[in-house]
């Protein structure tokens, strides 16, 4: 078998090896990431015990939409009330958010008349 035909027969094996290698690395990444979860959870737990449970959404401050920082701080989008009523529709923290959640659905207080 000459060099050219040897190369020809090795190429598919090489390509398959590269693809399988890539898939293995991707799988290993997911396994390693899952393994790091307990350490992440411990750090999160310490922080949350310190601040009493704070933070939930993709906002890092309270300027635009406190609800997107933490729904415990405000019901719904602040933009819905000011500066223009109904402004929740163009709040960037909802319309373009990768981590969207609806306003809190609170249970009706006992003794109030329902529908």
């Amino acid at each position: 078998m000459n060099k050219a035909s040897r190369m020809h027969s090795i190429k598919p094996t090489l390509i398959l090896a590269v693809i399988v290698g890539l898939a293995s690395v991707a799988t290993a990444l997911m396994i390693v990431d899952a393994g790091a979860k307990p350490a992440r959870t411990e750090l999160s737990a310490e922080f949350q015990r310190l601040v009493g449970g704070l933070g939930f959404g993709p906002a890092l401050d309270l300027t635009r939409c406190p609800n997107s920082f933490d729904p415990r701080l405000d019901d719904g989008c602040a933009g819905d009330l000011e500066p223009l009523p109904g402004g929740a529709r163009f709040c960037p923290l909802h319309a373009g958010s990768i981590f969207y959640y609806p306003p809190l659905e609170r249970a009706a207080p006992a003794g109030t008349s329902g529908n």
Partner: protein
Amino acid sequence: MGRFLAIAQTGVASLALHPLRNLVTAIAVTVLLLPFLAGLAIAQGIEEQAEASIRFGSDLYVTREEFGRNAPIPLAALDAIRPLEGVTKVVPRIVGAMTLGKDDEPVVVVGMPVSEFPAEVRCIQGRLPRPGKPNEFVIGTELARRLNLKLGSRILPFYHNDRGESISVIVGVFEADAPIWQARLILTPFETAADLFNESGRATDLLVWCRPRYEEQLRSAIRHAIVSSRVRPRITTRGELEALLPRDLLHRAGIFNLHFVLVFTVGILVVLVTSGIGLSERRREIGILKATGWQTDEVLLRAFVESSLLSLAGVSLALVLAGIWLKVLNGYGIAGLFLTGADLSPAFAVPSRLTPVPALLGFVLSFALVTSGTLYSSWRAASATTLEAMR
């Protein structure tokens, strides 16, 4: 089985026959999938931290309602809540917004009683703050970077208080690996936070811990205990917060998914062009195979194996690159798109989780993309007569 494997092997060999075309297809799939997988990984990272926020927070959050919005609650409500059956602990908290620095950097001020602080913490470089003068703060990493603050830095009075203002000292900085909401946080004793906001006798909310399964009973009890003409209580339970968490992968509204539906639709057109629909080369190749005795189903199996391997290559490469982008480069350039207020290179660890479900979804999407280019053209050519295919 042996025949099946032999045909599958030719599918692998066919990848080597058109290296440039297959490389371009795999790269196109990777480019399409990379931002999608990175975005989903960040969303799942935030979700993981949000779950911890619920799990390690209190059982109930009590505040007041005014004009349909949250309002501060008098500290007198503590005495009404503490004796209720099932209550194990009630803690007042202040959470408010301020600005700091010449550029008015937004800041989240959190005031907690020092009695709630543990003796040691690992999520802070430095130590926890103590009450008294000067004010002592633990600040977040983003704030520290933007205002050029570090341990021991002093801040001139930036607030107004009727009883006078004081210099503030940084006694701690949160670790970058702590949850993202530390980024612009100032943690300080409850009394100091009250001074910053020129408040006394009020908290933004009361944190209530209770015995298991007492949440609903306590919700009514607290409401009856503190309701009056001036106080309309608003109570949030842990269960209500858990209901907000998006439970399934596709339950994410917003324009993120819509954008990627458009991207994948355009992607199909790109891959159709690069995969050879209408190219005579593939038709001739299949014509030769048919002339040598290959059946239509064997040709399709060969194309199926080729498409599967290309899809696997594309999604694996996208996953590896997403991992590098998020874990090594800390989401450079992409974090700011999903986390409002984050810089191009955030000062905190961008949360991300690489999980199998998005990877599987990515594989299905990439397979649909690649197959639309290869399988259809292969079937058209395989179904034609040998002479027509070789023309």
